């Protein structure tokens, strides 16, 4: 058995990874809830968010805005806004027009769009094939509690991630647009009969989900210190898995699923010999067990079979 401190440490690390996964997963689950589709380019939307954020940070640095307080708020705002709008565009081009055709068509269209996004970054971003170092703007240093190292940078990532999740929860539970999103997820036709504008609600859902993925992209950049144009593939698969184990269509399920996936990865690394090489194997094995024995997920009602 590894010492308790190691387990605690890995759990903390897992929660931090999990926050990023959860932010991606919430998008998957929102899109599925509202349109009954899996938006397979969502992982690349996450990657795009990181690149938009990086570009904004570099641009801000050119005009002299280098301090975290001056650079971070506008960088997050631009990343969320641009990525959110790209998400809405993706929905209008690849998802909504195909809503009435076979789910296979949506799968193909969104997979292809993901490829387009990836290749675009590769080709059009200067030296797009290389990993891009991400400016380290989060506070450095840290402290130790009971043998567990806590870095300020990680606490900041956790704080931003949870703030984003609480923000989305408030939007969904407390605002008119949130009510429209929930109503459409439960019964689109009845929602329209209450006066809900269906198209605008779907747009808002994709803006919200894609904006969250952008936050996740930037947090990922701060956490790993670099971003790469293929990061959306793993990010997408993990985000989708997290949404599935949480229960597709359920926002809280996506958050639980994301955190669970992160903790599974890091504790597997601690508990199993040579575990860090196998962490994804262990985590995805658990996902498969879920799909076999509890296909509706931890908190879900809609079955994944509907996809």
């Amino acid at each position: 058995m590894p010492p308790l401190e190691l387990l605690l440490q890995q759990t903390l690390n897992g929660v931090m990874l999990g926050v990023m996964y959860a932010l991606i997963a919430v998008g998957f689950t929102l899109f599925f809830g509202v349109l009954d589709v899996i938006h397979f380019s969502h992982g690349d939307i996450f990657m795009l968010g990181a690149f938009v954020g990086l570009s904004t940070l570099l641009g801000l640095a050119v005009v002299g805005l280098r301090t975290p307080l001056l650079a971070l708020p506008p960088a997050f705002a631009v990343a969320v806004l641009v990525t959110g709008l790209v998400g809405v565009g993706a929905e209008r081009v690849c998802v909504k027009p195909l809503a009435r055709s076979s789910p296979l068509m949506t799968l193909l269209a969104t997979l292809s769009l993901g490829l387009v996004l990836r290749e675009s970054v590769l080709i059009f971003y200067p030296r797009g094939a290389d990993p891009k170092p991400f400016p380290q703007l989060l506070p450095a240093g840290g402290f130790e509690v009971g043998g567990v190292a806590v870095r300020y940078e990680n606490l900041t990532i956790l704080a931003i991630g949870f703030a984003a999740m609480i923000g989305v929860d408030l939007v969904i539970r407390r605002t008119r647009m949130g009510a429209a999103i929930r109503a459409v997820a439960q019964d689109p036709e009845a929602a329209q009969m209450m006066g809900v504008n269906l198209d605008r609600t779907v747009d808002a859902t994709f803006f919200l989900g894609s904006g969250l993925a952008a936050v996740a992209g930037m947090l990922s950049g701060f956490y790993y210190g670099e971003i790469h144009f293929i990061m959306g593939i793993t990010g997408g698969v993990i985000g989708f898995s997290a949404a599935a184990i949480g229960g597709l269509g359920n926002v809280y399920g996506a958050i639980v699923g994301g955190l669970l996936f992160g903790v599974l990865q890091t504790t597997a690394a601690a508990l199993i010999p040579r575990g860090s090489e196998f962490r994804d194997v262990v985590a995805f094995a658990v996902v498969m067990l879920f799909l076999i024995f509890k296909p509706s997920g931890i908190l879900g009602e809609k079955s994944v079979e509907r996809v």
Partner: protein
Amino acid sequence: MLELREVSTRYGPITVLRSVSLAVGAGQLACLLGPNGAGKTTLIRTILGIVRPVSGSIWLDGARIDRLRPHQIVARGVAVVPEGRRLFPKMTVEENLRMGAFIEWAPADFAARRDHVFSLFPRLAERRRQSAATMSGGEQAMLAMGRALMSRPRLLLLDEPSLGLAPVLVEQLFAMVQAINQSGTTVFLVEQNARKTLEIAHHGFLLQKGEVVGAGSAESLRRSELVRHAYLRT
């Protein structure tokens, strides 16, 4: 107030409504009678803009609405108790009522409107924090009605509101529809229960296989051979 002029609606290759014309005057309680599959629900969906007619026109207060989208039509003062109630199952009673007022979202008199609905259906007040899915059929019918009233509609469409209700509840429901109409709301009631419907309606239309095959005052419909034969079984 509401007028359909030669409206035809199709689902793919199947024509469901054939040149339907009918009119409901302001303040009236009009009904549409017809057997299953006659196109009654399609007619409601067409009025609401959920499906678009392939020909003909629909007018509300003298303005053409058949090219508008559902939320725009609802915003003009139309509310519906849809077939099968269509409540939001994961929302509470109170949240469902809030959805009924979605067009204005948080009107200043929201509490007053909600309390008015609670006074009509005291059971809903007891269950306000309960999710709609866990309620009995009768309670769901009340909630669907209350939800439709939350927008203070000028025109209320009711699609088989009595379906699946116990006779005593059906009695109450028809009394309530009549009361709503008498308080000034125009009502268009789609029903299979011809006997009860013709007791409260001013006039009505008969729909068969997507066509209007009869129209007239409730009194004349009650006496018509067609209605007696097809619906009243006398």
